């Protein structure tokens, strides 16, 4: 396999710009990197099966405007997330023509990936893989290992390895703490299990009363800290993060581990 640089700094008449190859990096990584390095700009992407062009405008960490030939706003971003080949070029300082998104970069990526998942619900596992690939980087090579069922303890330890996660707990629907890992010394883990079970029960009852759907996720914010809960069979997994700004990336990185954990409960 030949190694090519993912990003190249090129000089233009107006300003230094950056360009690269989508086969070497992910659009989401580029968005996160550039938005954290530059106050304002536009990423011009050429990709997809027919070589479509897309533009992503951001300013001050917020995604303002996305457009492709076929779609705009979050739908445009969803489309671009499926482009795994092509090229991009960054235009620092470029101004958005208008605002059709207006979310933080992380939030927008999360929303787009969720839409991508829902779009492919007919082939859920395949779609989940696509969404994960958009966010995952170093974890890809471990995917083959995931084919074999591992001990839940190992999966919990992997979850704990995701930056930003402070503690992980798996509880039964009755509040029984099945397993926990991480910085739980300052937490009464049994009390946490009981509280989460009560909360999840309430949420499920509400969904049932409203006849909407089964409960899928629950986020509880406490200032900057967030508890993210997800049902898995007869159990509920919860991760605790002290830094809400990492929630989007945490949500995506935890996805495959949650799916793996669901086989155990």
């Amino acid at each position, binding site marked *: 396999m030949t190694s090519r640089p993912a990003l190249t700094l090129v000089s233009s008449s107006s300003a230094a710009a950056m360009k690269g190859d989508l086969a070497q990096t992910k659009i989401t990584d580029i968005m996160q990197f550039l938005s954290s390095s530059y106050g304002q700009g536009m990423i011009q992407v050429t990709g997809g099966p027919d070589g479509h062009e897309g533009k992503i405008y951001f300013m001050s960490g917020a995604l303002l405007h996305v457009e492709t030939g076929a779609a705009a706003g979050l739908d445009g971003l969803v489309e671009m997330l499926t482009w795994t080949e092509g090229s991009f070029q960054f235009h620092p300082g470029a101004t958005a023509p208008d605002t059709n998104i207006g979310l933080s970069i992380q939030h927008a990526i999360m929303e787009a990936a969720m839409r991508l998942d829902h779009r492919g619900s007919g082939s859920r596992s395949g779609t989940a893989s696509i969404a994960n690939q958009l966010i995952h980087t170093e974890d890809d090579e471990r995917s083959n290992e995931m084919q074999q069922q591992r001990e839940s303890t190992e999966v919990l330890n992997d979850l704990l390895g995701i930056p930003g996660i402070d503690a992980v707990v798996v509880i039964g629907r009755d*509040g029984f703490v099945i397993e926990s890992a991480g910085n739980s010394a300052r937490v009464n883990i049994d009390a946490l299990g009981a509280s989460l079970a009560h909360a999840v029960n309430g949420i499920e009852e509400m969904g049932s009363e409203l006849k909407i759907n089964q409960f899928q996720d629950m986020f509880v914010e406490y200032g900057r800290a967030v508890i993210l809960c997800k049902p898995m069979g007869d159990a509920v997994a919860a991760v605790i993060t002290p830094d809400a700004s990492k929630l989007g990336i945490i949500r995506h990185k935890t996805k495959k581990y949650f799916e793996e954990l669901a086989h155990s409960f």
Partner: protein
Amino acid sequence: MTVMRDTVVKSLAKVTVQGDENGLIPEYEVLVNLLPVSLLNRLSERLMAAAPPERKRDVEAGLVRAAYECGYHTGCGIITSEVFNDVVLPMVTEGEKDILRGAYAAFTAWGWAKSGIVQLKEGERMVIRAFDYYEADNTGEGLRAYMLRGLSQAFFDLAYADTYPDGMDTFVCRQTKGIEAGDPYGEFIVTRK
């Protein structure tokens, strides 16, 4: 709503446990007694130690059977008792599954084992995890939580086999992990015999 473990534990912890002149406690529609767990551990340790190698499996099966018989009959009394009806049944919305959740919460409340359901396929299979069970202090070799094995089998028989007393020995429980063997918790899997 499902059975909330903490509610069961708190409610049952308030029940007065007072023995009569014979030391028997008429509670949960059965007669129970209060004995130090070290006595029970010592009993099983000595029985196993005294057994010749070729009979150890039989003695082990006997210990599990004793727990099973106790669990099946008193378990039926417990899950049909007034206390259980008052405390657990109002929270039952998922039938037998919730009855089992309540049973393990009661099991925890009485100090036998901090245990609960990890996985349950109704009428087919159940995985139990236990922490802090008294048999973890049992000395000896191998997996030795005989009481938990017998009771888990009994609970599942009560929940999913024929109606008491015809459903005995429909399921079997094996222990796959144990604190006494160096694992972080005890694990018990109940399946059809």
